[in-house]
């Protein structure tokens, strides 16, 4: 009986740690979920004299993927994005973040271009509006242009098949008033 009390406390703490240590401290919930995607007007990566803005994405469920040629994790993610756009009908847009235009174009040349269009955010102000802090990041927007999901870091097959693709299918069925 004398030893029961410390033992119970130890067991309690151990259980707490088992769950607590499995949390990813890098995962920071975004305050942008279920809010309208921040507006932007940016030149496209391929045609500097043409602009792209958030309204171009509305009407369809779309994906914004924040990427950069200097970002190592993007290199891991990129072939998967190529693969997904080949397999599925996805409205995937890129936000090229704090990159050199020539480097970014070269990257797409070498590795393939899964994006319908990439917006060129040279100084990263749109990145700040989207709360970007760990490239690559991926946002899923519904037809009205509301952010419904945010993923930080490279997407892998498991997350794509279990979370992202089912969400897109679900959002596509939503009626647009």
């Amino acid at each position: 009986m004398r030893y029961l009390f410390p033992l119970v406390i130890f067991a309690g703490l151990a259980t707490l740690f088992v769950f607590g240590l499995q949390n990813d401290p890098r995962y920071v919930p975004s305050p942008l979920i279920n809010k309208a995607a921040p507006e932007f007007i940016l030149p496209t990566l391929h045609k500097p004299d043409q602009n792209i803005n958030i309204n171009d994405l509305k009407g369809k469920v779309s994906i914004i993927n924040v990427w950069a040629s200097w970002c190592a994790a993007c290199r891991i993610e990129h072939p998967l994005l190529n693969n997904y756009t080949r397999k599925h009908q996805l409205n995937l847009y890129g936000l090229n973040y704090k990159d050199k235009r020539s480097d970014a174009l070269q990257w797409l040349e070498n590795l393939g271009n899964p994006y319908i269009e990439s917006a060129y955010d040279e100084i990263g102000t749109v990145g700040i509006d989207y709360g970007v802090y760990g490239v690559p990041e991926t946002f899923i927007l519904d037809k009205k242009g509301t952010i419904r999901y945010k993923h930080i870091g490279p997407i892998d097959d498991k997350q794509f098949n279990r979370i992202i693709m089912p969400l897109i299918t679900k959002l596509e069925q939503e009626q647009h008033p």
Partner: protein
Amino acid sequence: MKILPAILLFIYSLLSNFAYANDEPVIFENKNLEERYYFLIEEIRCLVCQNQSLADSNAPLAQDLRNEIFKMIQANKSNIEIMEFLVERYGDFILYRPPLKKNTWLLWFGPFLFLVIGFFVAVFVIKKQSRESQENK
């Protein structure tokens, strides 16, 4: 020759307050604005390196946010407006002092809760011991 390292350290300590690599120069019209700038960059977390403030961090994002804060101070934004701007984008986690909300209630008052529990445990133990020592008499 102990004096040389000491002098170097002293000079370094003077420099380190001012040097943020790659930042736009921060020159304010008055002392008040400057103090607000240094207050804010100490209070705001760099999300890339999480356990550093914007003032500590050399991450490119920290540089951008320092510049952003500098610009907002120049544009006459209040500290609260600047913090709201950042929280809207990055969430409460960007503040080193989390705001008092329903979901941070335990964080703020948890320590007092444990103090109260500790108090009752102490009372219980003392009472038990004094009872035992009386029975032994």
